[in-house]
């Protein structure tokens, strides 16, 4: 399986590449640092899967999904985000993203979303929401 990784941070791309390629079945065919680059590389290298940060410079991840999906509908696009949020998920899904995953998710989850190994039971949900829990429930 051929993958393209898009993230503004080089060390993050390097780490994810290391993890994916350690499986032996996955090959990272390109790395992009911004939205324009990921769209261009997607057209050039024709990857099976694009792993892309939602918050990319120049052209944000959401617009990049739209362009990639318009040109190559068969390419699987997985959005990565530091923060969970219904708005992000819905926007990404509406534009054709195939999955939405948090950057801190477990590697096994990342691999299964990519399509390697067993399918993930569910996508990781961000912990630590913004409100005090209703402790009356414990009572």
């Amino acid at each position: 399986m051929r993958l393209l990784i898009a993230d503004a941070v080089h060390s993050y791309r390097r780490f994810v590449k290391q993890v994916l390629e350690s499986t032996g079945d996955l090959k990272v065919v390109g790395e992009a640092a911004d939205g324009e680059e990921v769209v261009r590389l997607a057209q050039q290298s024709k990857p099976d899967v694009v792993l892309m940060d939602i918050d990319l410079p120049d052209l944000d991840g959401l617009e990049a999904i739209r362009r990639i999906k318009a040109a190559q509908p068969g390419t699987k696009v997985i959005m990565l985000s530091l923060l969970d949020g219904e708005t992000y998920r819905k926007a990404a899904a509406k534009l054709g993203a195939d999955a939405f995953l948090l950057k801190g998710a477990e590697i096994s989850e990342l691999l299964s979303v990519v399509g390697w190994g067993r399918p993930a039971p569910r996508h990781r949900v961000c912990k630590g929401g913004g409100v005090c829990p209703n402790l009356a429930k414990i009572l």
Partner: protein
Amino acid sequence: MSEPRKDPLRFAHSISHPVRLCRCTTSRAAKAAPRMYFCFIVEEQYRHDSMPMVIAERLLQWGHTVDLLEPSETVTCLSDLTRKGYDAYVLKTVAGGPGLSILQAAEAVGIPTINNSRSISLVRDKTIASAFAHAQGLPVPRTYFIAHPRLLRKIPEKDYPLVVKPTNGSSCRGIYRLSSPADLAKLEIAAPHPCFFLAQHYVENAGYDIKLYVIGKDVYSVARKSPLHPEVEVEEQLIPLRSEWRKLARRVGEIFGLDIYGLDVVETSNGPVVVDINDFPSFGHVPGAVSHVSNYILQIAEQARLKRRKATIKIALQPQFSDHPAPVLGGGPIPEAIARCVRRRDEWKSGSR
């Protein structure tokens, strides 16, 4: 989250009591939850840091009451500890700081603490943490304790390369790498006095540190630049979590008894190796960390409150209390519950029920 706070919370000097933080707006969700009362022991070193003050602020925003106690500036009346009615004491410790004594005192009189004093004692001195971790079978490098850098000469050559660090160090300060005994000639250690050192065998690794942050059972991994590898470019950021890191992090928590903690690991060819453990770390780059830690503290305090309530009711229902009035334990729902139980028991005895 370790940057200096722009808007430090108020501290009073030359006072004899903790400082009560002023309550801000209360969220609707917080109104549904029981009000809790916390005492944050803030060591002098952290009074301008964001952690743990941001947690205190968040609890306050949620409608709970928070007192700040700065041990170096406060006279703490130990006779009044139970009368204060705190649901929990919270401490982010500093090696050698006075906060731990107060935390231990609170724990001794039955007040919940976060983290507990035993756990903090085990991790705040790296000598103890290292020996304990090794004895418990955790993957830690072979480590020597030295009271003075001149003793480095006595460490066998086979244990090189070495990493030398102060036993009370923090934030990656004062860490040196020695490739061979020949490096001892040019070693100039700048360390605070009094200070002892650890000399750890350097394990070959990926060239960057992984900080594992743990809140209860939840683990987050953040890649971090290693002080021993300044040449490796790493932007500090949340990275996907390896299952072996999660297992290791939880194991450390179980062994040390920590609730809120962090550990530094390096990835080696033999798997992850633990090089440091801290209670109450900064949780930098962990999304939603302030709310998550605050929620977790509330849960611990609430569970402890429920446990106390159950224990008190149990005591009140014991036969030895049959000829005595209900015990008086202060205001609030606990005495009411006891009184209700005792009333019912008396009604049964008198046959009116």
